[in-house]
């Protein structure tokens, strides 16, 4: 029983890890050229930064929602 719960939490951590890799790579792709002055247009720079912040916000929201879903729908479904 306990092993099963541990395995489910391990799956959750794996999902969070994949999301972290995807989010960090996406944010870096969007924002780094702006930080390194590689984008000449100010409008494009602003859009890239806004998109980067949006990806970060979305990642945080999805992370919390998945954890809640895991607790109530996966781990505690028998209670």
């Amino acid at each position, binding site marked *: 029983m306990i092993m099963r719960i541990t395995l489910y939490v391990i799956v959750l951590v794996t999902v969070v890890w994949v999301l972290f*890799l995807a989010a960090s*790579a996406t944010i870096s792709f969007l924002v780094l050229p702006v930080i390194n002055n590689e984008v000449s247009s100010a409008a494009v720079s602003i859009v890239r930064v806004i998109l980067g912040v949006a990806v970060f916000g979305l990642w945080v929201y999805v992370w919390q929602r998945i954890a809640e879903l895991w*607790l109530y729908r996966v781990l505690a479904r028998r209670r």
Partner: protein
Amino acid sequence: MTSLTAIATGVLIGAALTAALLPVSKQISRRLGCTGLDAHKEKPYPVPKLGGLAVAAGSIAGFMAVLQGQQNVPLAAALLGCCLTAAAIGLLEDFRELNPVLKPALIALAGVPVVVAGVYTPNPQIPFVGTTRLTIIYPLLVLAGFAVVCNAVNSIDVLNGSMAYTSIPPLLALATVAYVEGKAAVLGISLVLTASLAVFLTQNKYPARVFAGNVGSLFVGATITYVAVVGRMEVVAIVAMMPQIMNEFHIIYSLRGLKSAKTAVVRPVIVEGGVLRANLEKRAPLTLLRMFSVEGVSEKTAVNSMAVLSIYSSILSLVTYFFFMRGVV
């Protein structure tokens, strides 16, 4: 250069001094009335909670033995500065509850010695992307990193042995990467703290005879952050510390801000006859322990589950390093 002999000496000094100072730290705790109730037992009893002093003193002696051959004063000064600042803030909190908003700001100060000494490289490596250049914002990220990691280690120190069992695997993952990259100083620092924590576990594992206290958990968090920043292993540390960071993040998110979990109206876990059972009320803070105790679990089993999760996330950190970072320019 830090030699293997210096590292071995540092590990031995760290372990021996921690073992020698643990009884002293227990005496100091009792004399100062600094004890905490072991709340997850059927009949809670007071436990000395300044065991972290022994870990800090033993580790610092070991660190100095490792760094003695370096002849790099800023490196040693920054390490001493950040660890002692974090330990001092933790000690203060062991005697007096700090404001939960003020606390992260204070802990961020532990990163100041690293920034002032300039022992960081503002070029973190990001998976798939490779080396980046964050000259201006990196010092701010260092300060934020100290606040996040120290609080994360602190927030997982809820069960007998949980802080040490979940800190050793990330330290070993960081040591592995440091070894592969030939970074002897941070390899030595990681191994010294690992040895010191292993000795501390003999007294802190279930049933605990001493707690690390905030002084211990903040010291460990500061050392891990220092190793990550100075060794340029930020992402490896983040992935290895995922259980702790997740735990902290979910507490902050579910309490809707920086509030002490102790002040939560609804407790995340209920103790019934020595069994930990998750409180399934929606208002309860979402913690790692609450997930593990959803079907009722003994404290010992919950700590084992946390340790297994920590080992797993440390393996993930090595997978991240070897497959998605190494070789990516």
